[in-house]
């Protein structure tokens, strides 16, 4: 219509905002990571990688993601298919499944703290069942495995919802006729799931997995609430470098490292789960 400038006018605030608060700080992070006292250097990365905690944090973060994400994927698929077959109470079930979506990671950590703490509900339950006679320290510095399990459970509990919602929305896009056709041709429910749902759901699976993996690398508050310093992870270490150790440049290097593996995995899943344009619904 009149004035080709209108769309640009409407986009200007958002664009300016993203430039100032997204692109610019990103450039700053990159700059700080590669400089120290005004000169270009890779020292920050050397310091980062040289820290005894670094391999542990990398291992913990990756291991946590590797355990959590596949379980979440299966659970999200289960939730999504279950809900789609439900005749009554569908929206109630969906709402309940989606609740953790609105809960912060810190709150999720605290919720599971109520269960795993020494005076938590798990100890009471176990003693009621007669398994133990005095409370066990699940989250002590010696019990790394139970901390890991508690964090993993809290993460699974908290962040399955986001995958479920994406998958439910994706399943809604698959026309019913495909299932009916498959049924007519004699496909069992399981076969229909494997042959129809999964392939047609691939774009949604792709976004769900990418989003989830990136969020898994950012795990922070859940660990802080449950494990404290006993289960160091990447984001927690970054926070440490920034505040406890007061070294901005190494913190920036950490940030860049997290960014690098995030982008690496994004590209990986974009490639592996790629759907050719002509094969989309």
């Amino acid at each position, binding site marked *: *219509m009149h004035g080709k400038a*209108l*769309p*640009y006018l409407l*986009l200007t*605030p*958002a*664009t300016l*905002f*993203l430039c100032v*608060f*997204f*692109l610019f*700080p*990103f450039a*700053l*992070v990159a700059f700080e990571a590669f400089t120290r006292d005004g000169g270009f250097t890779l020292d920050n990365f050397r310091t980062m990688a040289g820290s005894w905690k670094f391999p542990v944090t990398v291992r913990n973060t990756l291991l946590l993601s590797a355990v959590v994400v596949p379980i979440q994927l299966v*659970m999200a698929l289960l939730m999504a298919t*279950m*809900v789609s*077959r439900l005749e009554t109470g569908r929206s109630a079930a969906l*709402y309940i*499944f*989606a*609740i953790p*979506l*609105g*809960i*912060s990671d*810190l709150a999720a950590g*605290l*919720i*599971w703290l*109520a269960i795993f*703490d020494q*005076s938590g*509900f798990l100890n*009471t339950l176990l*003693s009621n069942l007669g398994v133990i006679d005095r409370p066990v320290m699940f989250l002590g510095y010696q019990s790394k495995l139970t901390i890991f399990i508690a964090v993993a459970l809290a993460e699974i509990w908290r962040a399955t919802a986001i995958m479920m919602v*994406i998958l*439910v*929305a994706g399943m*809604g896009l698959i026309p019913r006729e495909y299932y009916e056709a498959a049924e007519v041709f004699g496909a069992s429910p399981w076969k229909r799931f494997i042959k129809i749902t999964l392939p047609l759901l691939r*774009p*949604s699976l792709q976004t*769900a997995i*990418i*989003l989830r993996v*990136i969020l898994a690398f950012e795990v*922070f508050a859940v660990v802080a609430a449950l494990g404290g310093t006993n289960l160091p992870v990447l*984001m927690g270490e*970054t*926070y440490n470098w*920034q505040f406890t150790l007061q070294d*901005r440049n190494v913190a920036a290097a950490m*940030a860049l490292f*997290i*960014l690098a593996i*995030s*982008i690496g995995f994004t590209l990986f899943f974009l490639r592996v789960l790629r759907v050719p344009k002509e094969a989309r619904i």
Partner: protein
Amino acid sequence: MSTVAELSIAAPEARKAGNWLLVATVILLCVWVLLPIYLLIVNALSSPEEVTAFPKRFFPSFDFGSLSFFINFAGVARALWNSVLVATLTMLLSIGFGAPAGYALSRFEFPGKETFRFLVLMTRAFPLPLLALPLAVMFIRTGLDDTAIGLALVHTTLALPFAVLITFSLFSGIPVELEEAAWTLGCTRLQAFRKIILPLALPGIAASAVFAFTISWNEVFAAAVLTIENRTLTAFLLQSLGESPLYLKFAGGAALVIPALIFIFAVRKYLFAMWGIANR
């Protein structure tokens, strides 16, 4: 012949069993989601002594000792207020910047449109809270450090892409013809937007505003990095994790969770449409 008869009898039986299994699994999954929240609330509604006692009761005693301790604890009221303030600012900023962009994307074809979309989608591959680190320095220089607006700006980078994509799909769902009809009936572009598009999009915009509010309300890392005196509730709780007593943590956790439950309930109708679309 007999196998057919058997099958036709067996089928409804099997179907019934399958249904039971389905319902049982759904209920189990609901319990999995709800039980931990319930337990947190039990703790929040118990006296400080009961929280640390062993063995514990699985039902709340409705003693408000923990909660009143929490509310009266130094800094809590202020942190709550800061959380609300930052989240409100984030909501206003992300809708104020995002909705015009969403409208532009839904109604115009113009050079640069794809570049903008790419910029928005790119934010998703980034661990955005990390950007708070360099901004902390920038904010000190500009006097935005430790202010609600400073943190709200960072939270807006998280919420803005969603606001853009959600409002884009909202506006796309309203036929252009309605707007054109309004123009032919004597409206200017602005009048047509106000009289036709806005009333139709308002519930959705409100839902995405609530969504932006929730994103900010829940954010921990950037909040902890950027605030010192003016801590939000999440930052406050994170700071005091080490030293504060258990009952304070649980009461704080409940204070975080309850509003979130209400938010999610308020936007439940839009949850799937918004997430489904925003993440495609």
